[in-house]
């Protein structure tokens, strides 16, 4: 067998491929059905939250912040309940990260508020002395891309049956409906309504002016996403 393989590059290549592909088949594939099941209490992202998530990705926040709480006392003390697989069912892509230059953000919505984020994103070291996080001042003037967030909602609702406009079960037995716009205009209007609530807690005059003019600055979308992480 070995003599034969040495002389036939094609079958040799097939052999190499089988050997390396086998591991993936066995480890990765079989768990797909099981671990994609959402946990009760997990809900899809609203348009504004999703736009914020895109900004989180765009600026590679995941390069320094994890979203994965490991089951150790030191981690649950610091960040809250350890992560469960079903909580990530609507995360495309996953944002666990691989490095904690800054703290974990999996449940940051439980203990940080809109105004905290506003001050912190403008000047991190003023809020947390000694912080090495850069300021994200441009997010206060650049506008969030709601259209792309809407496009993603439509895509995942159609292709992966993500339950937008459908009741999803909550932990207390109630149900929650995450709405998705019926058109881009509708989605923008809904996002603006959500943004107004957040901007009401903010101090930055540029942000307030932009919202009053019907525009959504990036920072508002990002804070909406941060607040949704619970």
């Amino acid at each position, binding site marked *: 067998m070995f003599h034969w393989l040495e002389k036939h590059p094609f079958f040799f290549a097939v052999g190499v491929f089988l050997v390396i592909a086998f591991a993936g088949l066995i480890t990765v594939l079989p768990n797909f059905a099981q671990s994609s099941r959402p946990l009760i209490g997990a809900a899809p992202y609203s348009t504004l939250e999703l736009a914020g998530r895109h900004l989180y990705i765009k600026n590679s926040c995941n390069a320094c912040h994890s979203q994965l709480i490991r089951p150790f006392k030191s981690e649950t003390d610091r960040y809250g309940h350890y992560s469960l697989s079903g909580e990530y069912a609507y995360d495309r892509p996953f944002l666990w990260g691989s490095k904690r230059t800054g703290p974990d953000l999996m449940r940051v919505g439980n203990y940080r508020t809109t105004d905290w984020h506003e001050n912190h994103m403008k000047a991190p070291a003023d809020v947390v002395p000694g912080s090495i996080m850069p300021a994200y001042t441009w997010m206060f003037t650049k506008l969030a891309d709601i259209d*792309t967030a809407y496009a993603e909602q439509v895509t995942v609702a159609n292709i992966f049956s993500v339950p937008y406009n459908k009741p999803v079960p909550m932990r207390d037995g109630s149900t929650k409906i995450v709405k998705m716009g019926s058109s881009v205009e509708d989605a923008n209007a809904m996002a603006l309504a959500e943004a107004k609530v957040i901007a009401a807690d903010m101090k930055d005059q540029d942000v307030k002016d932009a919202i009053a003019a019907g525009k959504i600055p990036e920072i508002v979308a990002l804070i909406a996403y941060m607040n949704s992480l619970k």
Partner: protein
Amino acid sequence: MENRPLEYDYTVAKLFMFMTIVLGVVGMLIGVILAFELAFPGLNTMLGSGVAEYTSFGRLRPLHTDSIIFGFVLSGIFTSWYYIGQRVLKVSMSESKFLMFIGKLHFGLYAVGVVAIVASLLLGYTTSKEYAEFEWPIDIVVVLIWVLFGISIFGLIGIRREKSLYISIWYFIANFLGVAMLYVFNNMEIPTYFASGGHGDILHSVSMYAGTNDAMVQWWYGHNAVAFVLTVPIIAIMYYFLPKESGQAIYSYKLSLLSFWGLMFVYLWAGGHHLIYSTVPDWVQSMGSVFSVVLILPSWGSAINMLLTMKGEWQQVAASPLIKFMILASTFYMFSTLEGPIQAIKSVNAIAHFTDWIVGHVHDGALGWVGFVVIAAIYHMAPRVFKREIYSKSLMSTQFWIQTLGIVLYFTSMWIAGITQGMMWRAHDEFGNLAYSFIDTVTVLHPYYAIRGVGGLLYLVGFLMFAYNIYKTMSARPVEEYELQNASPMGA
């Protein structure tokens, strides 16, 4: 034309060689900037707050990893392929117009890909998946580049004169197949513009996998990107250039075959060690852990084989800076393939994961092993490709020591930083409360971040010396010998 003897044609190798050096400088420069941004956060706005978006850590970080892995290292691999491939198969690229065309097209498309990647990452187009950040149009270009690489490999094998395939060719084939499979499956994504009927950004896409599944696929990919880009082809390069430069046959060709299959069998199963204590099934984590430890065997099989190739010829290490690069690289390979499995042990991983120790581990592999092998390979190829002697041997020696010092500063500081932070995160006081707030564990790292920055800077300085040396080599004294045997000629 008809009377000229047939020669190996290094046109494509030469093009990729320039690309390797340029992207190496770019990638390492960005790395040094990132390192100092962590030590001195003010640098995030070094070009003014108006363009802070493009100079901030987050935006530059994927640019650093990708320009090193898929820029510097991959072009180094392509350079070596277009050099080694012809030689061990004993066939010249000038014998086939088709393969020559494919080679040039390969380079051209690669250059297009590089430009597209740099521009899109700076603008913030990223999928967030590590080492697979590119959006879907670039993924398509990458697949095309890879297909051309495949045509080039199998095309050259098809017209070879040497019947048997040298061990390096085996590794190149594995490199091609492994990356092809991994890249395609990890980048399964749906462009939202088309799926939603024309809304939003045309470049945006959404992953076909969600949450835990996405994580499993990503780290199956991420771990094996290290395997099939930063290990397998680098071994291929080493197995050719070390024997060739030293004039010594591989210590044991049988061992090289055996460790090849060992590496193929074991590597793919170890990806789970990136996900220890996460929400993936427990057995995947344990298996990742166990296989990482098993992985020491084939890795050391190759490394020991490289070191023992110098048996009886150790004076060459003292005499030739080129051999020094290769021997230190093999040593770093042994070192990081021992360190990796240690970090994959669950209880160690509990401390090491998410800390700078992992960053340190990556870099003693990347700087010590991969970087040195690529540098040594180019030093060996340059005299043959340009038919000149290497401009300066003393410059090369100086470079070696500067870079070695840089690596040592890098990994020692990152070890201390990682273990310090890992221990501080988990420390409780006598009442069972957390002993340190998160920021305490960040400010304590400042000196180590500064030392790391200096280490990285030294490596970059060494690399610039390398670039200069190669540049001057192109106009150095021509070599008299028609075909050079073994040791590369070097000027003072």
